[in-house]
C-alpha cells in the first residue's frame, strides 16, 4: 500500500524538484487559492450576518406589532369571561392561519394559559408548525419574563425532509381579567435568506475558482517568459559541454536575459579559446614526442645493429673492449625499452591508445605466465591458483600479457622473492588476477608512489627496467575499464591485483582485494 503511494508520489515529487515552472505555477495557485478562500469566507460571513440581522429586525417588529394588537384586544375585552380570553387567542391563531391569499409570512404557536395546574399546557398553533418548533431555552425565557425574545432554530421541512432555518420570536401575553399568561411565538421562515445566501456563496465560489485559474495561467505565462530563455541557455550550455564549442546564445534586447546571454557567450568564447589552445598544445606535444621517437628510431636501429655486430665479435677483443661491447648492447636495449615505453605513455596521454579486444581467458593467461621461460630462468617459481575454470573477459591479449609479464618480472627483479603466487578470482561482473610475491614489501609511502613514472623502490637497482612499467600497466588496465591496485606490507611482500570487467560488467569493486587492503593511490577511484 505504502509502496503504491510512493510509486505514485515519487515521479510527482521528482517533477516538482526538477521544474521551476511547476513550482511557480503550483505555489501561485495554492497561495492565491488560499487568499481568495479566506476573503470569500469573510465576505460570506458578513453577508449572512447582514441578511439574518435585517430579517430579525423586521420579524421582531412584526411580532411586536401583532402582540400589541392582541394585547389591546384583550384589554378591550377586559370585562369578558376568562373563557372569552382563550377564545380571543384562538381566534388570533385561526385568523393568522387563514389570513391573506399570498404565502404566509409567519406561523404562530400559542401556549397557555401557563398558570393552569394541569400537567400539559394547552397549545394551539397554525397549520404549518407545531410546538416542537419552539426551542426550549426560548420557552423558558418567555415564561419567566416579560419582553420579546428571539432564537434561530431549524424546522423539519415539509417538502424534502431537510431542515428549514427559522427565526422564532416569542413573548408573554397577560389576560387582564384573569391574570392568565399565554406564551405567543411567531415562527418566521428564513428559507428566502438561506437561498439568497446559497446564491451568493455559489457566485463567490465560481468567481474564486475562476480567479485562481486565471492566476495560475498568468503564473504559467510569466514563468514561461522568464524560463524560456533560461531553458534555451541550458540546452546551449549542454551542447557546449558535449564538445560543440561553436554554440552561442542569441542576444536580443537589453534586458536581464540579454545580459545573461552576453555573459554566457563571453564565457563560452573564453572557454573555447582556452580549450582550443590546450588542444593545440597537447597535439603539438604529442606530435613532438611521436616525431622524436620516430626520428630516434632509425639511428637507434643502426646503432643497435652495430652494437650487436660488435657484441657477436667480442671474443676477438681484449677484455675491456669486449666488456664495453657488452655494456653497449645492454644499455642500447634499455634505451630501446625506454623509447618504446615513452611512446606508449605518450599515446595514453594523448588518448590515442587503441584496444584490440577479443575473448580472453585470464586463467589461460595465468597458466601461460607460469610456463614463461624468462621467469623460470631467473629462478622464480610461479604458483597458479584458481585457474582451473575459465575466467573470460573482453580484452587486448597483447596488453594484458604485458601487464601480467610486467608484474611477474617486477616480482622477480625487485622483491627478492623466490616464489610468486598468481591467483585468478571472478564474480559475475569481473575477473581479478593477483600477482603476489613474498619479498621485502613496500611501506605505505612507497606503495603510494609505485605507479609513478620513473619511480623505483630501490634507486640502487635503477639499471633494471625503465621505471615506466607499472605506470603503463595501470594505463593498460584503465584502457580496459579495469583497475590495477596494490597492497603491500614490509617484510611480507607485495600484491598487485589486476581487475578487468566482464562484458557488460564493472571492475569496481574487484573480485579480489590485494593483500592487506589496497593502497588508494592518487587519481585512484
Amino acid at each position, binding site marked *: 500500500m505504502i509502496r503504491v503511494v510512493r510509486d505514485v508520489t515519487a515521479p510527482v515529487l521528482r517533477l516538482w524538484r526538477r521544474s521551476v515552472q511547476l513550482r511557480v505555477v503550483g505555489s501561485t495557485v495554492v497561495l492565491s487559492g488560499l487568499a481568495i478562500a479566506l476573503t470569500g469566507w469573510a465576505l460570506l460571513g458578513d453577508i449572512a450576518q447582514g441578511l439574518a440581522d435585517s430579517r430579525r429586525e423586521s420579524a421582531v417588529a412584526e411580532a411586536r406589532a401583532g402582540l400589541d394588537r392582541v394585547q389591546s384586544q384583550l384589554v378591550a375585552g377586559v370585562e369578558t369571561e376568562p373563557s372569552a380570553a382563550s377564545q380571543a387567542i384562538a381566534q388570533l391563531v385561526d385568523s393568522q392561519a387563514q389570513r391573506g391569499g399570498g404565502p404566509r409570512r409567519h406561523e404562530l404557536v400559542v401556549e397557555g394559559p401557563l398558570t393552569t395546574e394541569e400537567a400539559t399546557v394547552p397549545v394551539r398553533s397554525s397549520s404549518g408548525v407545531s410546538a416542537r418548533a419552539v426551542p426550549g431555552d426560548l420557552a423558558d425565557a418567555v415564561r419567566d419574563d416579560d419582553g420579546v425574545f428571539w432564537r434561530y432554530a431549524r424546522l423539519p421541512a415539509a417538502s424534502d425532509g431537510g431542515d428549514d432555518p427559522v427565526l422564532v420570536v416569542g413573548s408573554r401575553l397577560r389576560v387582564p381579567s384573569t391574570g392568565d399568561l399565554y406564551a405567543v411565538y411567531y415562527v418566521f421562515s428564513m428559507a428566502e435568506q438561506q437561498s439568497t445566501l446559497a446564491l451568493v456563496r455559489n457566485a463567490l465560489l465560481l468567481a474564486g475558482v475562476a480567479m485562481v485559474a486565471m492566476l495560475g495561467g498568468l503564473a504559467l505565462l510569466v514563468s514561461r517568459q522568464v524560463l524560456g530563455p533560461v531553458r534555451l541557455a541550458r540546452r546551449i550550455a549542454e551542447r557546449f559541454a558535449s564538445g560543440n564549442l561553436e554554440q552561442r546564445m542569441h542576444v536580443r534586447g537589453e534586458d536581464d536575459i540579454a545580459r545573461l546571454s552576453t555573459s554566457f557567450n563571453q564565457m563560452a568564447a573564453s572557454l573555447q579559446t582556452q580549450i582550443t589552445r590546450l588542444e593545440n598544445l597537447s597535439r603539438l606535444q604529442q606530435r613532438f614526442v611521436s616525431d622524436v*621517437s*620516430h626520428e630516434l*628510431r*632509425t*639511428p*637507434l*636501429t*643502426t646503432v*643497435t*645493429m*652495430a652494437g*650487436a*655486430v660488435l657484441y657477436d665479435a667480442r671474443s676477438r677483443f681484449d677484455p675491456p673492449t669486449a666488456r664495453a661491447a657488452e655494456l653497449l648492447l645492454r644499455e642500447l636495449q634499455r634505451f*630501446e625499452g625506454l623509447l*618504446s615505453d615513452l*611512446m606508449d605513455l605518450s599515446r595514453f596521454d594523448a588518448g590515442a591508445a*587503441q584496444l*584490440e579486444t577479443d*575473448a580472453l581467458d585470464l586463467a589461460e593467461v595465468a597458466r601461460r605466465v607460469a610456463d614463461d621461460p624468462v621467469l623460470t630462468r631467473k629462478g622464480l617459481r610461479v604458483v597458479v591458483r584458481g585457474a582451473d575454470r575459465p575466467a573470460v573477459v573482453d580484452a587486448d*591479449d*597483447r596488453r594484458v*600479457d604485458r601487464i601480467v609479464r610486467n608484474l611477474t618480472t617486477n616480482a622477480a627483479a625487485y622483491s627478492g622473492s623466490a616464489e610468486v603466487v598468481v591467483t585468478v578470482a571472478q564474480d559475475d561482473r569481473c575477473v581479478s588476477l593477483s600477482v603476489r610475491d613474498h619479498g621485502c614489501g613496500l611501506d605505505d609511502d612507497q606503495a603510494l608512489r609505485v605507479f609513478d613514472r620513473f619511480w623505483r623502490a630501490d634507486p640502487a637497482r635503477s639499471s633494471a627496467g625503465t621505471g615506466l612499467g607499472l605506470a603503463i600497466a595501470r594505463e593498460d588496465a584503465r584502457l580496459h575499464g579495469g583497475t590495477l591496485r596494490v597492497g603491500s606490507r614490509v617484510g611480507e611482500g607485495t600484491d598487485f591485483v589486476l581487475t578487468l570487467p566482464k562484458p557488460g560488467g564493472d571492475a569496481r569493486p574487484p573480485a579480489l582485494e590485494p593483500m592487506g587492503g589496497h593502497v588508494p593511490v592518487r587519481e585512484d577511484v
Partner: protein
Amino acid sequence: MSPRRSNHDRVLVVDDDASLAEMLTIVLEGEGLTAAVCRSGDTVMSALSAFKPDVVLLDLMLPGRDGMAVCRQIRTQSAVPIIMLTAKSDTPDVVAGLEAGADDYITKPFKNSELVARIRARLRRTDALQEPLVFGDIVLDPTGHTATRAGQSLDLTPLEFDLLACLAGRPEQVFTREVLLQKVWGYHHPGDTKLVNVHMTRLRSKIEDDAENPRVIRTVRGVGYQAIAPD
C-alpha cells in the same frame, strides 16, 4: 621467379638512411646473403629488374615517394616477398602497409637475429607441397608455384600461395591464426593476428567469386579459418 636455395639469396634494401642501409648490408652479408641498396623510391623499379632480389626490405619512411606507394608499385610487376621496415608500430600504419602488398613487417629497432629470421622465413618456401594439389577446381602446382582456378591463372604471391596450400592441404580442418602464423610466416609471433587477417582478405579477393561471402576459405568465428573444396 624461381626460388633459390643457394646460400646467396639476394636481398634488396630500399632505405634512404645511408647508415642504416649500410649496416643492414653488413649484417645481411655477415649472414651469407647478397645485399644491394636502393636509396630512393624512384629507382626501386630499375633496381628490381637489375638485381632480381629474392626479398625486398622496404623502409616505409622513404622520402620522395612514400613507402606504401612504392610497395604497391612493386606489386604491380612482381610477386617478390616484401618485408616492411617501420618505425610505426601503430596498427593502422601496419595494416595499411600490409594492404599495400607487404608480406610481413618488422618494427624498428629490431634485433639482427629477428631480422634475419624473418628474411629466411620469406626465402624458405613451404616444403609441405611436393606435388600438384587439386582442390576442387583449384590446382596448386609447387614446381612453378602457380595456381589456377578452373583453368584460369590466379596471380598469387608466394605467401598467398603458401597460405592457400596450407589450408587446402587439409580440407575442412580449422587452422587458428597462431598456427597459420607459424606454418606460413615461419616464426611465432603471438597475438599479431592482423598479418593473417590482411593476407586472408587479399587471398580471398583473388580466389573467391564473392570475397564478401567467402565459400572456399571460411572464417570459423572465434577460432580461425578452414578451406572447403569448391565445386
